[in-house]
């Protein structure tokens, strides 16, 4: 990768782009082959796949099950993928690559589902509901990351903030017998950890990755320590109530969308509101413009009178509050009691979702749904005894993130000043 002069710079870039086209085309063809040759084997010709679209209970609108002939559908999808791959190889899709990629991914996933459900019936709506639930903590983590990194501070401490939020949410929620207090305390402690991150990263100019790693290690240590020393002898401190399911009237009756997005706990609605709010604030308000300026070019922002350091402090603390509240989901929304290291890397998946979503709230939200879907499929597959090792589905978020940061499919770009400390003068 030596760049001797300006002339030679362009050629590698163009070549890299062409190579990327070829790689993607080949990947599409491989997917087509998998669907057409591997998935179709071992399915009876007459078998059909049936997908239930109704939530359990008595839905207002009863949908018929979606029934498709298994083999025919798989060949159809295989043909479509092969066609897209051929077009990709011959002339590419230009600026529409993202849409084509989305189509390929969705149809491929559908093919896998058809294969799994061949000869049986499967509740598609159940899978979608679980997907959304599993995406909730990832969304909080990703939003925390977006808030911090758009202002130019790398936050890899999301995991630690989620974990501490889960712990404090459970303890305060149990001690005061008030889940709202627990939720608030989780937000506060997330904010405090973020303040520590900000002080280390901004005031003491500690490398932001190291500062984040310190917080992650500290969070694991202190919550495990207090769990063994305080919560184990006093179980009553680890039995909070949980936020109940709240179906939103009318909206929850919409077929498919309703059960997915409008029949959850408070955390689901908070997550959705947060995504909309951060998207609006970041791209349509003066505040957002300033934050983005600080993250992209702090010196220019400083020149026009924006207080760079204060903006960074504020955003990191906001991000910490979001992550802390997201952490409370694990105890107050999901399981109802704290376990050591219960977040199990969700914070890093949140980080991955933020990167996959190109540092945008909506992109990160969609990425969280994809990762939540992979997580759900993994759980379903192990129940259904499907011959795909579920570990590989669990790897998916991490593999996708590496592919995306390496620009092997499309490229995402971090805010230009992300991770760089700012010194006046």
């Amino acid at each position: 990768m030596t760049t001797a002069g300006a002339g030679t710079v362009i050629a590698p870039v163009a070549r890299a782009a062409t190579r990327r086209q070829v790689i993607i085309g080949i990947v599409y063809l491989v997917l087509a082959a998998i669907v057409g040759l591997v998935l179709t084997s071992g399915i009876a010709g007459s078998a059909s796949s049936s997908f239930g679209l109704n939530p359990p209970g008595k839905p207002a609108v009863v949908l018929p099950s979606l029934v498709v002939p298994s083999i025919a559908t798989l060949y159809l999808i295989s043909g479509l993928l092969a066609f897209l791959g051929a077009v990709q190889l011959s002339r590419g899709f230009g600026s529409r690559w993202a849409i084509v990629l989305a189509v390929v991914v969705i149809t491929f996933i559908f093919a896998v589902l058809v294969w799994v459900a061949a000869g049986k019936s499967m509740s598609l709506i159940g899978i979608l509901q679980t997907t959304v639930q599993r995406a909730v903590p990832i969304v909080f983590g990703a939003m925390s990351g977006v808030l911090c990194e758009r202002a130019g501070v790398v936050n890899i401490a999301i995991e630690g903030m989620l974990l501490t939020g889960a712990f404090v949410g459970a303890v305060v929620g149990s001690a005061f017998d008030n889940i709202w207090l627990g939720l608030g305390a989780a937000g506060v402690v997330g904010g405090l950890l973020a303040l520590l991150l900000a002080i280390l990263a901004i005031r003491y100019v500690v490398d932001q990755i190291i500062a984040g790693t310190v917080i992650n290690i500290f969070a694991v240590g202190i919550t495990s320590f207090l769990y063994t020393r305080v919560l184990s002898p006093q179980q009553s401190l680890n039995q909070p109530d949980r936020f109940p399911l709240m179906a939103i009237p009318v909206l929850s009756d919409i077929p498919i969308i309703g059960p997915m997005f409008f029949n959850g706990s408070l955390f689901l609605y908070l997550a959705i509101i947060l995504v909309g709010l951060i998207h609006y604030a970041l791209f349509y308000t003066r505040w957002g413009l300033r934050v983005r300026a600080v993250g992209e070019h702090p010196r220019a922002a400083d020149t026009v009178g924006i207080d760079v350091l204060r903006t960074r402090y504020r955003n990191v603390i906001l991000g910490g509050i979001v992550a802390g509240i997201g952490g409370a989901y694990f105890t107050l929304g999901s399981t109802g009691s704290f376990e050591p290291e219960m977040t199990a890397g969700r914070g890093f998946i949140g980080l991955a979702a933020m990167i996959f979503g190109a540092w945008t709230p909506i992109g990160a939200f969609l990425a969280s749904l994809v990762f939540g879907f992979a997580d759900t499929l993994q759980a379903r597959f192990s129940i259904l005894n499907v011959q795909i090792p579920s570990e590989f589905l669990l790897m998916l978020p991490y593999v996708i993130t590496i592919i995306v940061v390496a620009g092997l499919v499309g490229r995402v770009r971090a805010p230009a000043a992300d991770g760089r400390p700012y010194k006046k003068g």
Partner: protein
Amino acid sequence: MSEAGPLPGPAAPGGASTPVPDPSAPTAATAPPAAPEGRSASNALVAAGRGLLVPVLSVVTAFLLGAIVIILSDQKFVAQLGSDPLAALRAGLDSVSRAYSALFTGAIGSPTGYLDAFASGDTNRILTAFRPISETLLAATPLIFTGLAVALGFQSGLFNIGAEGQLYAGAVLATLVGFSLTGLPGIVHLALAIGAGFLGGALWGFIPGILKARTGAHEVIVTIMLNYIAYRLVDFLLKTPLFQRPGRSDSISKVIQPSAELPSIVEGLRVDWGFILALGVAVAVSWLLFRSTKGFEFRAVGLNPSAARYAGISIGAATVVAMMISGGLAGLAGTVVILGVTQSLTFGISPGYGFDGIALALMASSKPKGIILAALLFGALRAGATPMQSATGIPTDLVVVIQALVIMFVAAPALVRGIYRIRVSRTTGTEIFSKGWGS
């Protein structure tokens, strides 16, 4: 590393705002002859001590904060706080002293224990007395490797946060070679297994290296993700017939052949030749970094990539090779645990050695000699933690908290200087390793 160079030392509160004058220069001309000599000697001492001052104070402060954590989480302390604060404080301090003394005797043994054992002349009792030291050296062994791995990355301008994943990748190959080859003489089998461990880590380090060199993908993101991919991969492999121990349904591998085991240094103590290997590798890494052409290239790329490129050094090649060696060193950490301690691969072989490596590299300013010392300290903490929990009921996780605090203080020297009001000379400053994810 354009950001690192021009940064002055961070302003220590109240200290650095007034530049410290060089005391020897003006006094040499005017003061009586005895004074400058005395002062320069003490200055030299101060200069030597300054390198150790921040790490030592970091450790002390971390232990003090750890004590506060113990006191605040003490049930007697909390119960008596309202009625009798003094007694509460006494109870809390009592917990602290019992915990820390158990930690220390668990890590280095008790002086009276040594004396009694030698007085009795009984070999078994002497061995028992030395057991804590043996456990400390044993725990320090993988830490030396991960510390070297992260340090070599830092010296080459790379932040290898993936030592944990590389450790597991190395452990996988070392285990595979360890149990699958039979009938080999011990030394050959052992060498092959160690080589396989290095190779496994190197392969896992190759991925972020090549991606960084070819596409510019930031190694921090890639190595974080590779850590988790390694966990899942081990999870998968341990359930395949190739690896899983016959008759077991949990995630545990077959046992390695005795010919691949690292023998103990002293019969009866657990510390094995892996520790000697670690010391040897530390010397080798020191030579590689500071005496060889390749190491010069690594450091040149780490210090100033543009200058290195101008000097004709291939940044891409240096990045890939440095990342592979770094990964290989981390792989050796997993290897010595498998071949020396556990004899089989499970999920518990590393309680975060890879992340401790970051702390060690920071404490030692990425110098191999310092890494050995820092690894002995962290090894002592790990070795003492288990006896501490069984003797006093204070959870071993206290050690994790203390380690996190040590990293924090070592990474933010200005914080320590601020707490202890230490004045700082202009030359010392915070090092910045990574270059941010942007652009």
